[in-house]
Each structure stands twice: as structure tokens, then as C-alpha cells.
């Protein structure tokens, strides 16, 4: 029921935005953005089960949990970035979308830097 409501909500937001674009075009974009954020929050709330499953799986291993945290953070950043760039592209702000994508890449590189350093160290150890 809840899932159907969210999907219906998306449809209604889309219809409202369509109607608004004829009357007040500046509000249409805002409406879409609000709707997308609400749907994203609802979707993220649904990921609890997946996160619990991954945490349980990770607890059964001796592999450092920091790495899992880094991957999940990267996923989160990518989800937000995808939404932001999609909204910017919807409004034909491709340069904004491009810079947001660039910022995301820099952010991901900074976040994954410890992993890359460890990979290089492991590679050095392997080829020693």
C-alpha cells in the first residue's frame, strides 16, 4: 500500500508540474524538486533492510568495516549526485550538472583515497 502511495505521489507531482508549467513555469521546477526529494527520502528509508543484511554479512568477516563504510558513503554520494544532476539537466542547466558531476568525482576520489593508498601498498607488498 505504502509503495503504491509513493508511486501515485510521483505521478501526481508529475501532473501538477505539467499543469504548473503552463501557468507558472518557475514553480513547476520547484514542485518536481520537492517531489523527487520526498520520493528519495522514502526510498532511502526502505534501504534499512538491505543495510542490515550487509552489516550482518560484514560482521561475519574479519575484513575492516571502514572499507564497507567507504563504499556505502560513495553510494550515498552517487545517489544524491545523480538526483542533483538529473534535476539540473531537466532544467537545461547542463553546465551546472557538469560541475556537480565534477564535484562528485573529486569527493569520491577524496573518500576513496585511503582505499587506493592501501591498494598501492598491497600491490607493492605483492611485487616486493
Amino acid at each position, binding site marked *: 500500500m505504502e509503495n503504491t502511495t509513493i508511486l501515485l505521489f510521483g505521478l501526481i507531482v508529475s501532473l501538477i508540474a505539467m499543469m504548473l508549467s503552463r501557468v507558472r513555469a518557475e514553480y513547476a521546477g520547484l514542485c518536481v524538486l520537492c517531489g523527487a526529494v520526498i520520493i528519495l527520502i522514502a526510498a532511502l528509508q526502505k534501504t534499512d533492510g538491505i543495510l542490515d543484511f550487509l552489516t550482518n554479512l560484514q560482521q561475519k*568477516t574479519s575484513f575492516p568495516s571502514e572499507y564497507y563504510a567507504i563504499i556505502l558513503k560513495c553510494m550515498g554520494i552517487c545517489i544524491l549526485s*545523480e538526483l542533483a544532476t538529473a534535476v539540473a539537466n531537466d532544467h537545461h542547466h547542463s553546465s551546472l550538472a557538469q560541475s556537480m558531476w565534477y564535484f562528485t568525482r573529486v569527493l569520491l576520489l577524496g573518500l576513496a583515497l585511503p*582505499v587506493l593508498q592501501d591498494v598501492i601498498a598491497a600491490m607493492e607488498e*605483492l611485487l616486493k
Partner: protein
Amino acid sequence: MKRRIGIFVLLLFCVLSVSANATQITEIIPPEIAQQFSLDTDKVDDPASVLSSFSFSTFLSMLERGLKSVVPQLGEMLFEILSILIILVLVDRLFTSQNHRFAASCVGNAVLVLFLLRRFTSSIILAEENLETIRVFCQASIPIITAILIAGGKSFASTLFSYGISLSSTLISTLSHSICLPMIRIYLAFGCCSTVWNDINFGAICVLIKRIIKWLIGIVFSVFSLTFSMQTILSRSADGIAFKTLKAAAGGIPFLGNVFSGGLDGAFTLLSGAKTSASIIGIGVIIAVFIGPALTLVCQYFAISLSETIAVFLDAKECTLLLKATRGAYELILGLFLVCVMMSIICYLMICVGVG
């Protein structure tokens, strides 16, 4: 004539005293292996007693202990790979944008590379250490077994054993330290690169390296088997002639000839038992050293093969490539380990059954 008898008896005592002065083979067994066998040091020369210590059930119980310690590791490794694999598949399915999918999966792949590299490095060190243990044991056993063989009238066989062990030690050392293991490391490094750089076909280099290593191992083992077989045939006939000559010479001694000839037979039979015991201990120790790391390597190989199958099933292309490269590296290291162990075992086996 008395002078000749005196010289002969003196020579016989000199030959027999070699084994008396030599260190026992039990003294060179690595302590961690020695404690696994209840070997009676007073009955080292008795093959039946040695066989009861190195019985099949002893090895089975060792295998069981090894499996009990290795199976949890297999589960842990499988969980580790699967957890990263599931995240990567989620990433692949979650994002609609190609750029975002690639960026997120790069981080996931880097974590998987890191995990596999760490596991493989520890495995390669394990294999290296155990090959070194086998090599040191084989080298240390040369004077002991050579002394027993010379005392048993098998001077050519002793030369053959020294030659075989020296050759296998050199080959193990060269193969493991200088050629194959470094090449396997490079193979895996290229395999890791192939998952990140799709533009350059690193897979082709991997295939070439794998082929070279397989050929090298095959050639080395063939050369070893060929040389050793030829030497075995030659030494068997030479020792037979030497024994017959010695027996004829002893039989030619007036009055005491038959006694000396019979004594020679008895002494050589006793020393043949000592030689068989030493070979059994040698083979047993090598197998005991081999079982632990071989189980670990096989277990990790299975974990990676299973993960690769799951990755293929889930259509995770980069992961499949990486796991395939790692599986190839494990195959090579297992092959190398097996060949090195086989070479050492063949040397002892030839002494036990082939030459004696």
C-alpha cells in the same frame, strides 16, 4: 693373505661406521611436524615401526585437523567476497547514469582488489615458507641418507640421491624465488589492472604469463624426471655389479670366505631396512609439511571459484575478470607447489623402492 684380510675387514668397518657416526634423520625433522608423529627414536631403523608412526590413519587425522581449521576460513573468505560482490551488483543495478555507476563500482572494485591482494600475498608467503622448509629438510637429510646408502653398499645410489635432492632443491629454489613466484605476482598485478582499465587488454598479457609459467613448470619437471630416471637405471646396474664384485671378493678369502659373504648379506639387509625407514620418514615429513598449506590454498581456490561462479550468475563483469585472474594465480601457485613437492618425494621414493 692375512694382510689382505686385515685391509678388507678395516675397509668394511670404515664403511659400516659411517652410519654409526651420522646424525639420525629424526633429529632434522621440523619440531612442529615431529610432534604430530609418535616416532620411537630407538626404532628408527625398523621400517615396520616407522610405518606404524607414519600410518595412513595419522595422515587422515592430520587431514581432518587441517580441514577443521581451514573450513571456517573458507566460509569467512566467501562471506567477504560475497558482501563486496552484492554491494557491487547493487551499485550496478541502482544507478541509471553510466557515469555514476562507473564511479561507485570503481571504489567497490578497489576494495575487492585490496581484499584479494592481501589474501593472495599471505598465501604466496605461506607457499614460499613451506617450500623452503621442505628444501631445508631435504638438504639436511643428504648426509644422513648418503651415509646409510654407502654403508649399505649403494655408493652409486647415494650419489644419485645427493644429485637428485640437490637438483630438486636448486629447482625449488630457482622456481619459487627467482622465476615462477615473481611471475605469478606479476600475473595477478596485471589481472587487477585488467579490471580497472578496460581500454588496454591486460587479459592477453595475463594469458601469456600463465602459459609461460605452465610451460616452465612442465619443462622443469620433465627434465628432472628424465635425468633422474636415467641416473636411477645407471646406478641400479652399477650398484648390482659392485655388490656382486664385493661378495665374490669376500667369498674368495680362504677359510673365512663363506662367513664374510654371509655377513655382508646380513649387514646389507639390515642397512636396507634403515634406508627404507629413512625414506619413509622423508616422504612422511614432506607430506606432513605439504598438507597444511595445500589445504589452505585449495580452500581459498574453491572460495574464489565459487565467488566467480556467483559473479558470473549475477553478471558482474569486472568482478568476474578479477576473480578469474585470482583463480588463475591460485592454480599456478598450487601447480608449482605440487611439482616441487613431487620432485622431493620422487627422490625419496626412488631410494625406497626404485634403487634399493
